[in-house]
């Protein structure tokens, strides 16, 4: 590790403050980054991480405070200025153009003028040397949409390196990666460190932070609340710093009483992503669906929910066979889906929370087609209390809510439907630690009420910590079932998920 007292820090942000109408997003925040260091930036959603990164990337100008690079005061008043200063930000969705090749994406926007000839051979040479520097080989002439997510990420990294970035910001870089790909990313990060690049790493996954980061710094409510080298802090202490209180247990699993079989799925298929999936779901249990990204878990529940048409297979509810060809039918049968991506699938983000809540429940809140907003509002407020949804009132626009509160609005929508089968697809993705805990408690409570819960999760600790039973999928098939999650390790699940064993434990 680099001795911070003797060298000028690569990056210093001093006393940064930024307000938006009605919100003090950042209040007197300091941040220091040394060359060759990985700094993890921690904080719950809304703590001010993205605002700080946007200031560093030149997308926002701070109200107060200064930025020093190599000890020199630097103005970052536009993204271009930030790029020139050596800052490269890799956003969660990578910002790549799907229809361009890896090479074209890397050099996009780097031509001196619009009619400048693109020198393919030179670009190819440069791109190859970039990938060599990163240590991973990517076919530079394949279209980005054809590349796996992990390789797209490498392209995004190459893109910022091609601009001579010395400060690289990674925003939730592992959100869409499989565990094996995460290992690959670790190697890349080590490589960049050894080249003297400073990395700011944003993630909700504490295990990764322990693995990758040299030092953490924590924001809470727009303020800097502490920072420590990674060896001197435990995971619980990190959580405590982030949420400002201690959590007893990351996974508050209550032992639930599994009841009768509620849902039975027989030989559900849609080739090639879903092949002959059969399972049953009991009242009062949480059934975990584990597997790698692309194993067909989301696709399976989409068939179950009637979003996509199944090729074959039967769905039985409470002992009778049901025919589901659209989400509307699934909902009528009491099956509800809480999608992984709430902003693009779960909620109409431009509409108010109450309208979103009512959207699925018009049969309760409308008579002869006329909406009774008063009843709708009363019912919604009921859930606001019950689920402790943090909203100013029902007219708040859905997209202004944090991930956890959005998830609760979706949940309220389905609870009003008297949903019996609740399918949670990645229920805590992008949700901060405090809200995660609340979601887990809610799942426990729902199970205790006799509802059947199916939970898809890519986070093994979550799957093992919250499920009563686990089904592991691999390449569209059931690879195995784990009946007692307390008895198995993450490695056992991974072996099933990667197809190295096919067994029932």
């Amino acid at each position, binding site marked *: 590790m680099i001795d911070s007292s003797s060298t000028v820090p690569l990056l210093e942000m001093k006393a940064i403050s930024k307000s*938006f*109408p009605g919100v003090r997003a950042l209040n007197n925040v300091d941040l220091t980054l040394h060359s060759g260091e990985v700094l993890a930036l921690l904080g719950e959603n809304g703590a001010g991480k993205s605002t700080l990164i946007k200031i560093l990337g030149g997308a926002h100008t701070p109200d107060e405070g200064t930025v020093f690079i190599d000890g020199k005061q630097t103005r970052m008043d536009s993204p271009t200025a930030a790029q020139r200063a050596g800052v490269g930000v890799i956003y969660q969705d990578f910002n790549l153009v799907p229809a361009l090749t890896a090479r074209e994406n890397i050099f996009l926007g780097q031509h001196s003028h619009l009619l400048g000839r693109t020198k393919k051979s030179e670009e190819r040479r440069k791109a190859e040397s970039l990938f060599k520097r990163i240590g991973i080989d990517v076919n530079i002439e394949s279209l980005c949409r054809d590349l796996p997510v992990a390789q797209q990420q490498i392209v995004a990294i190459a893109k910022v390196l091609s601009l001579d970035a010395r400060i690289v910001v990674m925003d939730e870089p592992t959100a869409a990666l499989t565990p094996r790909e995460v290992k690959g990313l670790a190697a890349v990060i080590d490589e960049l460190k050894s080249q003297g690049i400073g990395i700011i790493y944003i993630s909700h996954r504490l295990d990764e932070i322990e693995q990758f980061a040299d030092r953490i710094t924590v924001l809470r409510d727009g303020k800097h609340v502490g920072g420590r080298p990674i060896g001197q802090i435990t995971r619980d202490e990190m959580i405590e710093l982030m949420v400002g209180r201690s959590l007893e247990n990351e996974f508050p699993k209550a032992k639930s009483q599994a009841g009768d079989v509620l849902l039975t799925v027989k030989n559900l298929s849609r080739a090639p992503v879903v092949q002959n999936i059969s399972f049953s779901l009991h009242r009062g249990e949480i059934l975990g669906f584990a597997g790698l990204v692309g194993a067909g878990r989301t696709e399976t529940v989409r068939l179950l*929910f009637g*979003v996509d048409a199944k090729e074959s297979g039967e769905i039985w509810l409470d002992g009778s066979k049901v025919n589901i060809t*659209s*989400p*509307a039918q*699934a*909902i*009528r049968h009491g099956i509800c*889906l809480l*999608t992984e991506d709430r902003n*693009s*699938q*779960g*909620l*109409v*983000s*431009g*509409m108010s929370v109450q*309208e*979103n809540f*009512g*959207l*699925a429940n*018009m049969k309760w809140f*409308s008579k002869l*087609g*006329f*909406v009774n*907003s008063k009843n709708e509002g009363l019912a919604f407020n009921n859930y606001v209390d019950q689920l402790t949804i943090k909203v100013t009132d029902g007219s708040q626009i859905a997209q*202004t809510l944090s991930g956890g509160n959005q998830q609760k609005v979706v949940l309220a*929508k389905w609870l009003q439907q008297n949903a019996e089968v609740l399918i949670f697809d990645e229920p805590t993705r992008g949700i901060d630690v405090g809200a995660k805990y609340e979601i887990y408690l809610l799942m426990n409570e729902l199970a205790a009420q006799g509802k059947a819960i199916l939970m898809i999760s890519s986070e093994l600790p979550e799957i093992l910590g919250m499920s009563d039973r686990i089904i592991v999928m691999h390449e569209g098939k059931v690879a195995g079932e784990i009946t007692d999650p307390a008895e198995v390790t993450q490695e056992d699940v991974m072996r099933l998920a990667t197809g190295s064993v096919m067994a029932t434990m």
Partner: protein
Amino acid sequence: MKRLLQSKLITDYGMVLVLVLLGALVTWATWGEQHPDDPGAGKHLANGIVELPGDDTHVAVVVRQTKSDTEYAEAIATQLKDKGVTVAAIIQARTPRDARVELVKLGEQQVRVNAIATHHFCFSTWGVLQQSALDGLAANYPSLKGVKPFKPASRMGSTFLSKKNLVSILNQNAPIAIMAIGMTFVIITAGIDLSVGSLMALSALITAVSLRDWFGGPQASSLGLYSAFASAMLVCTLCGVFVGLMVTSFQVPPFVVTLALMMMARGCSFILAGGADSVDIQASGAELLYSGTIFGVPNQIVLMLVLFVLAHVVMSHTALGRYVYAVGGNAQAARLSGVPVFRVIIVVYAICGAAAGLAGVLDASHFTSGRPKAGEFYELQVIAAVVVGGASLMGGEGKIFGTFIGAMILAVIQNGLNMQGVDSYRANVVYGALILVAVLLDQLRNRSSRWA
């Protein structure tokens, strides 16, 4: 400036403000001496003549050969007769020379005339009505001795703000505004309908042709008339359903489907017209839909206002309205919430088609004929009205009331340019530029209110 743009007043009623400012601007630009020549002014003038000293007033009314002048002259004559004043003659002349000839004829027949009632236009531009010319006539013909011209008093005011002009603005723009209601539904679902102008012509043609061939021709009963109107609207509604099906079941972009329909419907209109410029409607009473009034307000305007209120209620108080916004805001999320997305889209295009059909029926009633060229380029004006009214072409956003304001903004701009005598080429340039400015203002407002 930023604070001003962010204030609640501006964000909620920005477009109303633009409309009011435009109205004020046009009022100012058209401010000047007003020369009333409507029936009301005629009645007023007659009362003035009645009060002339002496009980031996013999009046000749001299006006042009226009429809409005006929009404004006009749109003004068009726009022004069009611008050017991002799109306010697009503002269509707095509030219000042004709007027002179008629007056000379009166003189030759020795019909007593000592007052001439006219209006500002004839009074100030026709030489024969100048006092000196009249004195000359009186010298030759004793029966015209002492004849004097009278016209309604002029006063200061704005041509734009006159009741007549405001009513005519609303009336002229009612078809576009009605189609804009349907278009608002479509645009809020992130769709577009380019076929409305052509559907309007198709509807007018179906009305005219079906009346001629099926529903009784010149002897058509009112049932026949209603049947013709209804079948025209039904066909247009079905065209909308067809668009909806193409957009949903076959995933053809609405731009393409409605572009194709636009061409097909226009072509069909010309085919139905058999190559003629128009197909006349012989049935009596067909014009009543357009020319009739309810409490003195033209039918078209009443219909338009009722439809706006109805559409507003649908959009803000019904499940359908909620669904329309949801489909436009995020079709995926709407479907996963159990919203019947396909049905909503089909209904929306059907509404848009029906609105175009209604506009076509009104057009047929207006001209008592089906014109295959009716509604040309109307689709663009309709879309402009919706966009100026604040709806987003990306879907999920827009208000029925906004569309009404948008349509009125465009109408006022057009009317203002018209009254300033701007020729149509230049008017188009200004019109286009003003649409851009209106939408630009809206964008600036949105940008300043979006803060994160």
